[in-house]
Structures are given as structure tokens and as C-alpha cells.
């Protein structure tokens, strides 16, 4: 059964199914009840499942995450919403010192089946702290899993997989793609959550991306095709753990790779991918792994964000450099 839905609606449906499927699932966060969240991802869910399953939280991020730790200890599967990327930091200590470490600290006796949903990334003309890409902090933290869907079908399935996971999942939602429609297949068995997908096949170079940049990379590949260049696009889907098998086999074929993300370049996800590809494919590759990323500055004011964000043109420029080797 297929249906065309926006990513926002797909997430809403996924959350709804998770709430129906398991009475231990509960949602918590600021404004997620009556309002349905500032992006309306939880719209209608409180009305359907009640105030005990869809909980409006006090305005305290550490409180939201820290109490979710306790709820998880009690056998619940809390799904918390952080209103915006830049506001996760008051809860950061709980995430990295508690959520991430609890399973190992207790010798596996206290798993943390928790999902931390974060609308992230720029491109929506927002004010400060509403456009950031903090995924690197979480991906650098062992014990957390970090994923980012790039389309409606993945959004629908991955949110349910994240909720079913017995590990804590930081679920990065590309907010500027919330309103992009896609086909959701409600009946086909979904891909495993921690597997990358080849979003487009190509032969000359691999573009590696996730979340909001997948569409930009697909656009770039379409333009490149008109110019006679065949680009493969790998949608990571999971940032931690990275699916090295898919990634390495793609680059082994195309022999060239460009990593694209919005987060600042230095020590970003792209750095890790470049290092690993060089370790594994040094004698195979025709050119060094290159990166197109945000610059190493705090996210800029909205009116210049298009200069900061990787664009089709910037990506194609770097692809040209890679092909010129």
C-alpha cells in the first residue's frame, strides 16, 4: 500500500503506529501536546492517546532527557522532542554522561531504549540557534546511535525502528525537508535502520550525504548528468554507526568520493569518512576524498545562509576538482 506524504506527516504516522503498537511508548517534549509540536509532528496524538502518552514537558531540556532516563529504567520507551537543534545543549550533559553510558556502566543491565528527536539543519530562514547541525557531537559519543532520514518513506519506518531499538537513538530530522512529499510504502518490509542506501547509481564519483543534503546531492547529480558526468549518491541514513560496507563498495567502484554535510567541516562526519576511505581504499582511489561542508563558523544569519550551506554549484565545483586528478 503506497501513499504520497510529506516527511512531517510520515513522521506523525510513524509515531502514531508506534504508540498503537506498544503501550510503553510515550512522547514528551515542549508544546508537543495540544499544539502538536512547533512543527506539528505530533499533531493530534495527544487527543488520540491522552496526556499520559503524549506529555507536555516543563521548559527544561535536561529535565526532559533526565526524566526520560528514569522512565526508561522503569520500562518505558520515551521518545522526546527537542524543539530545535540549538536547544539540545542544556540537555547535552544528560545525553552524553547518562543516556549514552548507562548500558555499559551497568554491564548491560540497564538499556536505554530512548529516542531523542531533533529537528536540525538550516535553510529555513530562521533566527540564531534554529539552524544548527550538532550531529557530530552525538556521533562522537559511543553508546549513542545517530540517524537521519532524508525522505518520507525512511522517516515513517526509521522512527518506528528507532523506537523499537533497545539503544538510545538520536533522531535528526532535516527540518527543511519536512514538507517535501514522497511515496511511503506502508506494506513493504523496510530496510534495516543502520544500512546506507544508494539513492542514485553512477560511475564517475560517489557523493556521500545524509538528511537534508541528500536532495541537494540528487539535484547536483541530475545537473551533472546533463553535463555528461555520472554521479552515484549514497544516503548514509545512519551517521553512527556508519555502514562502511555499502560506502566502501560504492567508492571502490567509482574510485572518487565527495562528502557533503551542512555541519562545519573541521572534525565533522566528513573527516571520519575521508580518513576511513583513505585507510581502506588508498590504492584504489583516483583522487583524495573531498568535502563540501559548512564553514567553521557559528551558523550565519539567515540572509546569508545560502552562502554557507552546500549548494548544487559548490558540490559540482568540488566534483570537478576530484575528476581533474
Amino acid at each position: 500500500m503506497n501513499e504520497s506524504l510529506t516527511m512531517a506527516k510520515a513522521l506523525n504516522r510513524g509515531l502514531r503506529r508506534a504508540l498503537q503498537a506498544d503501550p510503553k511508548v510515550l512522547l514528551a517534549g515542549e508544546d508537543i501536546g495540544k499544539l502538536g509540536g512547533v512543527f506539528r509532528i505530533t499533531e493530534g496524538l495527544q487527543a488520540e492517546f491522552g496526556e499520559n502518552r503524549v506529555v507536555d514537558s516543563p521548559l527544561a531540556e535536561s529535565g526532559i532527557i533526565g526524566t526520560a532516563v528514569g522512565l526508561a529504567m522503569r520500562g518505558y520507551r520515551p521518545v522526546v522532542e527537542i524543539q530545535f537543534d540549538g536547544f539540545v545543549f542544556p540537555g547535552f550533559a544528560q545525553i552524553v554522561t547518562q543516556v549514552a553510558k548507562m548500558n555499559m556502566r551497568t554491564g548491560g543491565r540497564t538499556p536505554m531504549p530512548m529516542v531523542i528527536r531533533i529537528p536540525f539543519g538550516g535553510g529555513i530562514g530562521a533566527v540564531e540557534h534554529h539552524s544548527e547541525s550538532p550531529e557530530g557531537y552525538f556521533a562522537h559519543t559511543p553508546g549513542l546511535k545517530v540517524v537521519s532520514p532524508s525522505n518520507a518513506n525512511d522517516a515513517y519506518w526509521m522512527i518506528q525502528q528507532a523506537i523499537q531499538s533497545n539503544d538510545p537513538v538520536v533522531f535528526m530530522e532535516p527540518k527543511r525537508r519536512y514538507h517535501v512529499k514522497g511515496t511511503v510504502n506502508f506494506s513493504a518490509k523496510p530496510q534495516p535502520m543502520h544500512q546506507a542506501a544508494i539513492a542514485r547509481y553512477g560511475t564517475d564519483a560517489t557523493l556521500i550525504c545524509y538528511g537534508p543534503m541528500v536532495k541537494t546531492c540528487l539535484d547536483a547529480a541530475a545537473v551533472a548528468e546533463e553535463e555528461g558526468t555520472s554521479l552515484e549518491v549514497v544516503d548514509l541514513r545512519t551517521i553512527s554507526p556508519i555502514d562502511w560496507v555499502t560506502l566502501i563498495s560504492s567508492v571502490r567502484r567509482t574510485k572518487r568520493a565527495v562528502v557533503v554535510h551542512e555541519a562545519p567541516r573541521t572534525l565533522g562526519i566528513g573527516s571520519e569518512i575521508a580518513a576511513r576511505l583513505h585507510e581502506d581504499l588508498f590504492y584504489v582511489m583516483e583522487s583524495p576524498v573531498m568535502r563540501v561542508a559548512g564553514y567553521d563558523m557559528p551558523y550565519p544569519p539567515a540572509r546569508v545562509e545560502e552562502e554557507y550551506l552546500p549548494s548544487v554549484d559548490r558540490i559540482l565545483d568540488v566534483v570537478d576538482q576530484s575528476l581533474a586528478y
Partner: protein
Amino acid sequence: MRGQSHDMVQLLTPDGERVHNEDFEFTGSTEDLVGYLRDMILARRFDAEATALQRHGELGLWTPLIGQEAAQVGSARALRTPDVVFPSYREHAVAMVLGLPYSNLLSMFRGCDGGDWERLETFKNYQIVIGCQALHATGYAMGLQLDGAVGNENPDDNAAVIVYHGDGAASQGDVNEAYVFAASYNAPVVFFCQNNQWAISEPIALQSRIPLFERAKGFGFPGIQVDGNDVLAVKAVSDWALERARNGEGPAFIEAFTYRMGAHTTSDDPTKYRESSDDEEWRGRDPILRLTRYLEKEGAIDDEWLAKVEEDAKVLGAEVRATIPQLKDTTMDRLFETVYAEPTVALEAQRREYAEYAAGEDA
């Protein structure tokens, strides 16, 4: 004493005299009190042994509880089976009263494991990051409430959570956020603050201008100050707070006014930051001495009893020392195995990398 309220609940004076309080009374028997005294003496011995073990290099660190025995034993004796404890890092006497294997505590401070403890369903891991556990406790209590484990007709069906934190912790955002959440959701959680006057070298005056228990009112639940060196009073007040919580009447805050007689941990030197006259004054309020005096006067214990307990303490000490060689270090394999509940391909690859390297090293 600065920060001590006129309303502080006390049922036994430092001289071992029972006093009457309008609102609280100790409902246990003299026999119970004899048991509490024994708990406190054994806890002090356990603590002294662990401190000595640290000095001998057997533990990486120890957090002495000396002086806080009444606060811990009194509150722990108020707990019942379905209740759950969220400790900080000094609640050794609570662990002992609940029958937690003390090898677990030693193991963590020795660095054998990170808190791979038995009976985590009753007594959660020690928490090193100040204040984090106040939120975990509150979330857990919210869960109890959702589960319908509060306010039932049958008292046996009801449970509460008790969370221990210090006076310094009361400055942390997490602890204050926990107060907000607990109040907003009427969570069955008792905040048990052991105001031992010091946060490492910082006096309580640096954390609060008003007695801590007065803060509770601002969050919307009752706060009470109790003489933390008076086990009768602590028990009575804890009974009250826990019973309210179990009945669905929501959170309460207990400030146990006490004193850390030793160092903060085995790595600090209290003579650098406090006066010996303070120590002297508090020594006069020693929780163990106080109850001993009372029970002697009552004729409930005598020298023979004390000698017997001293003997038990020696046996405990020997057991504690004998435990150390039996503690097993965790393994890299076990750590790789427990980073995630569901293993990842990427980490499994690192695990094999480690195994190959380790095998090569042995060869």
C-alpha cells in the same frame, strides 16, 4: 549553627535524651533502635575499612560516609520492598541496610567495573555527575505513577522513590529541574538532601542564603529540616514523606542537617578548608554516640552487647578485606559487548581488531 532552623525535627538530643515533637514521633520499638545502632556501627566500620583499603592502594578512591550514618540508616529503614533508591556516591549505609552486596561498591571504586551491580531494580548505580540522578529518580517516579503503583487502596501495592543528593547538588540545574518536574506531575519522589555542610571545600553558605528546606515551598511541595544525626527523627520524617508519596500526595523534600566528619573523598584534605573547632563541635553530635547513650540509659544495651557488635564489626572488616582479591576485573570483551544493547557491525570490527592485537601481544 548557621542554617539550622528552630523547627528542625529532633527526637533525641545529642546527650541521648528523648524529646517530644508536636508533629513527629518515632513509632518503632527499642529493639528496632538497637538494630539501627548496629547498622550504624557496622556501616562506620565498613567505611573505615574501605578508607584503609584506599590508603593501601586497593581502591582508586573512596567517599567516606563517617558522620552521616543516622541520616542514611534512618531513611533506609523507612523503605519497603517496592521502593526504589537513586543514590549519589556516598550512600554506603543505605546499600548495607538494603542488603546490597558491598562487593559491588568496592568493585566500582576499585575500577573493576562501572557499576555492574546486583539488585539494580531496588538500588540504582552510584552517580558521579552531581545531580543527574535527581532527574532519573523523578522520571522513574513519574513511571510509577503511570503504572498505577501509587495511591492504591492496598498499601502493599504502592511504591515511592527516594533520591539522595548533597547540599552542593542543590545548586545544580538538574536538581532544580527535578523539583519542577516532580511538582508538575505530582511524582512520588522524596528528595533526601544530606546537608553535610560542605561541597568538597565549599561551605553551605556559598550554595544557599536560606536554609535549603525552605526552597521546597517555592517549588510547591513541603520541605522539612531534620536533625540528620538523630536516627529516630530521620526515620520518623522519612516515614512521613515516603508514605505521602506512596499515597499519591506527591513529592517532599527532606533536609537532613548533618556533618561530614571525614574528608570529602580520600583525595582531599579537610584541614585546608575548615576549622578544627567545627569538627569538635560536631563530634559532640555524633549520631552513634548519641544513640548509644540513650540505649545504655534505657538498659537496652550494655558493655557485653557493645563488645559483641565490635566483634561483628571486626568480622565484617575481615570480610571486606577478603573480598578484594575476589573482585574480578571486567574485560575489554565485556565492554565491547555492552556499549550497545544491539551490537553494531562497526564496533564488532573494532572488537576483532582488538582481539587480534591482544592475541599478537600474548604470542
